[in-house]
């Protein structure tokens, strides 16, 4: 699935250095890379920064408003739909007017990559909006029960959640699903993939320093930045945070970064993942500047694998948490945790194992969601806990038992 053309020169280099007489391979010069990457994500051309991902920041900010709207009894289907899909190709419906009237629309980037995009998966998100507006919002102050949407409060009275007739908290299905279908998919299956980076004349343009219109960057540099932006787009100005983005990302927003930070944190599932990913983004961008596409793709592989783990960790985390909450008799929180787990499981189909395959296929994901977790009022814990067959073990196995979680 990767563009082999780009990897070939490297392979050739290894085997043919002294055997081949004519050296007219026009891709990239086989000088052994001694490329120096900067310490931070900082790249300039003629003294001007070449980094730009404002479109990603805009979408991530739109997502924050949509998240709030999915937690309000006042939200109508049309208002939510407008925020999600815009109107006539233009974003609309946000309180922050800077987020309106742009070509940046969350829905247009949901389950939309060439590799993992799916119209039926995207339709699930539309269904969540409809269910929320038609059934949950009107029953905001009713007591939820099996078959009855409404609110459910934890025994200590501290937390109240709104769930649908199946016991699902829809904003969690929606947002944990978006972590995969939107942020992760756009990064690992779109922007840092040769399908996007190499299409059209982008390789030639990048090799020859042809810039994107009147911008200071090449198209390929920009696409890589856009991938970067879907993770780091709300972390603040790179001049301020660039030095600590690797060691201590802040976890801003409600999507992938929020959980990436948790995995990286001290006591998290995999401290150090933050630096690994940040360094790979920096080295990949450096490789693009130097026209070394094999090196670039090797960094993309690292990013694909590492970011995909975040989804696996938190799918398992919330399944475990669900069991713990049931055990503790906190049914409200159990519904909440299982809703988060559901969204993360939905996200698994958008992971990328570095070979352009998801850790779990769309078909498998749908099978588990639609059979094991169809009705939250009627969950058989064996589906989660059974050795080898339960959801937790299935996810671990899907990741080749590389996840460091019980």
């Amino acid at each position, binding site marked *: 699935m990767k563009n*082999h*053309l780009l990897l070939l020169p490297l392979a050739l280099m290894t085997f043919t250095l002294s055997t081949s007489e004519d050296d007219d391979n026009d891709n990239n010069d086989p000088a052994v890379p001694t490329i120096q990457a900067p310490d931070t994500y900082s790249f300039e051309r003629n003294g001007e920064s070449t980094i730009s991902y404002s479109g990603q920041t805009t979408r991530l900010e739109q997502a924050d408003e949509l998240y709030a709207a999915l937690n309000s009894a006042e939200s109508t289907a049309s208002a939510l739909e407008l925020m999600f899909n815009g109107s006539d190709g233009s974003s609309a419906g946000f309180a922050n007017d800077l987020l309106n009237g742009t070509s940046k629309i969350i829905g247009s980037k949901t389950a939309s990559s*060439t590799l993992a995009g799916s119209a039926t998966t995207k339709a699930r998100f*539309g269904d969540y909006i409809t269910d929320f507006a038609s059934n949950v919002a009107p029953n905001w102050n009713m007591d939820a029960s099996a078959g009855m949407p409404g609110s459910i409060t934890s025994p200590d009275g501290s937390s109240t959640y709104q769930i649908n007739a199946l016991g699902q908290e829809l904003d969690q299905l929606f947002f944990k699903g978006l972590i995969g279908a939107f942020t992760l998919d756009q990064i690992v299956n779109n922007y840092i993939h040769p399908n996007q980076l190499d299409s059209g004349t982008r390789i030639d343009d990048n090799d020859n320093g042809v810039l994107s219109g009147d911008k200071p960057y090449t198209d390929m540099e920009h696409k890589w930045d856009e991938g970067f932006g879907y993770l780091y787009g709300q972390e603040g100005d790179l001049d301020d945070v660039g030095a600590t983005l690797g060691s201590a990302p802040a976890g801003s927003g409600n999507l992938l970064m929020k959980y990436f930070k948790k995995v990286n944190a001290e006591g998290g599932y995999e401290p150090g993942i933050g630096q690994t990913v940040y360094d790979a983004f920096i080295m990949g961008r450096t490789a693009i500047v130097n026209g070394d596409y094999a090196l670039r793709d090797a960094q993309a592989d690292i990013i694909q694998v590492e970011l995909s783990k975040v989804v696996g960790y938190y799918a398992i985390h919330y399944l475990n948490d669900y069991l713990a909450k049931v055990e503790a008799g906190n049914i409200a929180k159990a519904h909440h945790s299982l809703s988060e787990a559901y969204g993360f499981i939905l996200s698994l189909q958008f992971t990328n194992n570095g070979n*352009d395959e998801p850790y779990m296929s769309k078909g498998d994901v749908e099978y588990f969601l639609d059979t094991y977790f169809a009705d939250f009022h009627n969950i058989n814990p064996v589906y989660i806990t059974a050795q080898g067959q339960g959801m937790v073990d299935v996810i671990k196995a899907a990741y080749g038992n590389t996840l460091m979680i019980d």
Partner: protein
Amino acid sequence: MIKKIFSFTFILIFLIFSCSSDNDDSSSEVWEQKSEMLTNWADNFIIPSHSTLLNNLVYLEGAGNSFTNLPNQQNLDSLRTVFINAYMSWQYVEMFDIGPAEESYYKSKMNIYPTTISRIEINIQNENTDFNNSNNYSAQGFPALDYLLYGIETSDELIISKYNTDSKYLSYLSEIINQMLQNTYPIVEEWESYRNSFISSVENTATSSVNKMTNDFIYYYEKGFRANKFGIPAGVFSGGALPEKVEAYYNKNISKALALESFQAIKNFYNGNGGVSLRQYISEVSTAEYSELSTDILDLFNIAENLINGLDDNFYNQILTNNVQVLEAYDAIQQGTILLKTDMLSVLQIPTDYVDADGD
């Protein structure tokens, strides 16, 4: 799915090529195969498909003349029949957006839908027939005819009556048919001379026939087939569904037939119909990792076709009553995009020559 680790043999093969000559895929067999493929494409696909279309457009002109002379139900029925025949044969032509067709924006003049009704009505009233003005691309061709033959009034009786009372409608109708012929004649003619340069352009460059036609084929699959016929009307790229954007919206009954015909054209082109085409070429050059690719593509085409067959003849109705079925068909077709655009191009070592605007 395919692993990116190369088999050692592949490296070895490539190594031999790279050392033996001055081109990156210069084995004489591959060269010959490409040449055979281009000849097959030109002689058994492109040229005859255009001829068939041209013949059907000539029939269309005849039926159009009969209707103009006497706008009655019988002549309307005949005109509609030849319109459908011509529209079906167009499905075998749209993908060849190369050479003379590309230069003259042929595809845009023949099949942009939905057609712009307001533009058509203004043109009719002003008797404007400047069809080379790009603003009028969406006011001509098959979609405009679809509107004129089925959509200008709510019943056949009223449609016929409109043509009888307002001669401007009749003249716009014949102008459009005439223009479709005028668009097509030069392409058929130019292919006679263009053929030789087309079939001799076998090198692996962005402008070679092999690279361009392969890209055009995939572009047609992704845009002309997947997006235009399914994705856009089913709302894949928007919020809600947009059923009025189906092909032949005013006819109501042939959107599925046109889509299936288009799919047949895609499969024929891929299979080569007895000659060498992409299927054979992939098998020839694929590595062990991609050894199943040529049949994987066929299998996927069959899965997608079965799903399309399960849809209502009228996609408009299908989208309104059960859009999920359309989305499922779309997803299957999309799997084909991955195989063609990512895997096949990787095997053939052909870069994609088009990009999608992503709004960022």
